[in-house]
C-alpha cells in the first residue's frame, strides 16, 4: 500500500526534513521544485497504518507545517 503525500515545510528546511523522513523505514522523501514542499511516499501494510504514519511520523516532525495525502490506490 502506497500513499503519496504532499508536505509543506518551513522555507529552507526542505532538506533537513527530507533527511529526517529518510530515517523512517518505508518513508521515501522526494524533492520537489516548489520551495517549501516535499513529496513523500509512505509504504505500509494498510491504508490505515499508512495514514497513521502520516499523522504520527510525518506531520509531527519539526519544521513540517502540514502534510496532505494526494494519491491513493486501492
Amino acid at each position, binding site marked *: *500500500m*502506497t*500513499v*503519496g503525500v*504532499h508536505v*509543506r515545510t*518551513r*522555507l529552507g528546511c526542505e532538506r533537513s526534513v527530507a533527511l529526517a523522513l529518510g530515517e523512517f523505514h518505508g518513508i*521515501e522523501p*522526494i*524533492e*520537489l*521544485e*516548489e*520551495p*517549501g*514542499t516535499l*513529496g513523500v*511516499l509512505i*509504504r505500509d501494510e494498510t*491504508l*490505515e497504518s499508512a*495514514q*497513521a504514519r502520516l*499523522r504520527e511520523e510525518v506531520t509531527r516532525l519539526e519544521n513540517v*507545517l*502540514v502534510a*496532505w*495525502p*494526494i*494519491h*491513493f*490506490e*486501492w
Partner: protein
Amino acid sequence: MRINRRDFVKISAATATAASATAGTLGAGMMARPGPEWVKSVCRFCGTGCGVQLAISDRKLVALRGDVDHPTTRGLVCAKALYLPKIVHSPTRLTHPMIRRGGKLERASWEEAMSLVAEKFADAIADHGPDSVAYYGSGQALSEESYFANRLFKGGIGTNNVEGNPRLCMASAVGGYVSTYGKDEPMGSYDDIDHANVFFLIGSNAAECHPVIFDRIMARKQESNRVMVICVDPRKSPVQSIADVYLSPKPGYDLALLHGMASAIIETNRHDEEFLAEHVQFKKVVDGKPVSVGWEAYREFLDDWTPEKAEAVCGVSAQGIRDAARAFAMGPTMSFWTMGLNQRTRGVWANNLVHNLHLLTGQIGKPGATPFSLTGQPNACGGVRDTGSLCHILPYGRVVKNPAHRAEMEALWGSEEGRIKPAPGLHTVAMFNALGQGDIKAMFVLTTNPAHSMPNLNAHRRAMANAPFLCVIDAFETQTTRLADVVLPAAMWTEKAGVFGMSERRYQYQPCVVDPPGQARPDLDVLIDLAKRLEARGVVPEGFVTGKLEDADAIWDEMREASRDTAYDFRGMTRERLKRERGVRWPAPTVDHPGTARRFVKGDDPLLDAGPYADESLAEGQLKFYAASDHRAVIWLRPVVGPAEEADEEYPFLLSTGRVLEHWHTGTMTMAARELRRAQPKAFVEIHPEDARALEVSTGDLVHLESRRGEASIEARVVDMPQKGTAFVPFHWEHAGSLINDVTIDAFDAGSKQPEFKICAVRLSKARTV
C-alpha cells in the same frame, strides 16, 4: 533530481501500481509505466471543490488522486477525499426502498414506495392545501436536483416550503452579501490568495475544514515574509498556529472587535476616502427599516467603539485591535470566514462588519483584496443558494416577494400565473416546528440528516418521529432515515452525473462512472418520478415535467436560460463545455467567455460589457457594484448585541460546536470508512486546563454537559485550546449520549434565520471515568 508536483503524482501512481514498489527505486522509468485510465471529477465533501481524478475498473473506483491540472486546487486533496471510493463502495449503503409497517421499516419495491409517497403528498395537498407539504434539501445535492425540487414545489405544487441544510451553515453569509452588495456570492476568487499580503481569518478553522485552501494560504505565506495572517477565534484552532496576530474575543462579541478595528482605521487615517466617496453608502436600521445616513454619522457611531471601548466589551486588548487594523488596512487583504460568524443570532451583522472593513479601506475589487465566505458543503452555493432553493428566494438572485421575479419564473417553468406564492415559506426551524405541531402533513428530506444536525434536537427529532408522513432519500442509514415512513436508497457522487458549484462561483461537472448498489437511484430520477405521479394525480399541472424536463441535461439547459439577464449569467456553460473544462466561474454569458475571477470589475466581469448591467463609461479595472441600490455598497451601523444565551450561575460555561479534519457533518459518509472512523472514533469535549482542575476532570473522563434543552455525556480532552469558561465539541458522532445537538440552541438570526450553533450556555460536571 527535483521534480514538480505533477510528476510526483505520476510517480506516486506508478509506485502504487508497480508490483515491485517496495524496492523503492524511483525515476523516469516508473513515470513512463502505463497505468489505468483516469477520469476527472470533483470531491464530494466541502465547498473547496477540489479537483480529483478517478481510476475506474469494471465500473468500480480503484484509485483516486488530486488533479494537478485543476486550476485552483492544483493536485491537492485532504484525507477525506482519499476515502471516497471506499465510502461509495461501502457494504453499509442503502440498497432498496423501505416502508414503515407496524412501526418497522420493511423492504418494499420502488413502485410501492413511490406510489405511497405520491399518495401522501397528494392527499395532504387536497385536504390541507399546498402549504401542508414541505421539501428539506441539501447543499450536497447536485444543482439539477435542487433546482428541480425547487421548481416542483414552488412552481408546480405552489408552496414556498422549500428549505435545505444551507440554512444551518450559509444563510448569514447570504444575508451579509445581499444586504451589502445587493446580490449573493463572493466577488473574488481563490486566485486572490496568490495576491494577498494579509489574510484575515475570522470564525474559520480552515486548517481542518477547508484544508486545501489553508495550504494555499500557507504557500502564499511562505513566498514572502511580508504576508501576514490574522486569526480571530475564541478557540485556538490550528489556524492560530500560523497566525502573526491572534485575537480571541469573548464568544459573541466579535462585533465590538470589528467596530474597534474600523475605529482604529479611521483614527489613523487609513481609510480610503476616495473609494468611500465613489462606491459606498451608509445605513442603519431605525424602527425596523433601513435608513440612509452619512459618513459623519458613521464616524460618530464609531466614537463609541474606540479600541479601548471595544476591549472592554470583547476582551481583546486595544493594542491587538490596533495591530489587526493596521495590517488589514495595509493589504491587499483577503478575509475568510465561515461558521464562526454565520451560526450566530447576529450572523448577518457580523458578516456586514467584515464587509465594512473592506469597504472602509477600499480592500476590495483588486487582486488579493476581497471578502470571501468559505462554504461547508460541495454545493450549498451552486445548488441551493444560486438555484434559489430556500423558502424566500427564486433562481439566480430573484426573490418570491418580487412580482416581476415570480412572473419570470412562472413563464419559464410553464406554471400558471399566481402559482408561486408571494410570501416566503417556512424557514428551517419554523418548518420543523410546524412539523411538530402537525401543520406539515408530508415532508420530503433529501440527502441530509436533520435528526442529527438540527439544533435543540430533542424537540425537532420528536417532530420527525411523530410526523404524519416523512420520506427520506439517502445513501446511508442515518438518524433521520430511522424516523422515516419511507426510506429511498440514493445513488451518490460518481454514481450520477451533474454539476456542483463551489465557493468561488465555479460550476464543475461530475460524470457518472460507476453503478449504484442494489436498487439505489439518483435523487433526480426520484424527484422526476414523484413529479410525474403528482402530474397524473392533477396536483401539478399537466406537462409541467412530462415531455419537457425528463433528464439532467434538459434541466441544465433550462437553468442556464433562467440565468439570462441576471447577475449570475452562466449561459455560456454548456454541458459539453463543463464536461471538457475543469469548471467555469460565473458570470460566463457566452461559450467563449473564460469565466470571471473578479466580479464587479470592468475588464474582468463580462456583465459590465453587455446586458442589463453594462456600463460603457467605465475604464478597465474600474469597479461598479452594479447589483447594489445606487450602485453603492453599504456600510452598516450595526449595534453590538450579545448571543441569545449568556453564561450565568446555573449554566456557567459557553459551548461551541465544530468539526475535525477526518469527519464531515453528521458522519454519514466518513463513518463508513473504517480508517476515518478509527482515526477519530468518538466525540470529545475540549476543556481549558484551569476549568478542568476546578471540575476535577482529566483527559479521558466522561463529562456531563447539560443545557436548558438537553444533555450529553462526552469524553474530556483537557487542552489549552478553548477559552477558559468555554467548551468545544465537534458534532459528528451519533453514539448514545453524544449527540451534542441535543444541547445546542435553536435561537436564530432574525434576518438569515440561521441558528446559533456556536454559542449556548451549559453546565459541566464529571460523570465517571471511562
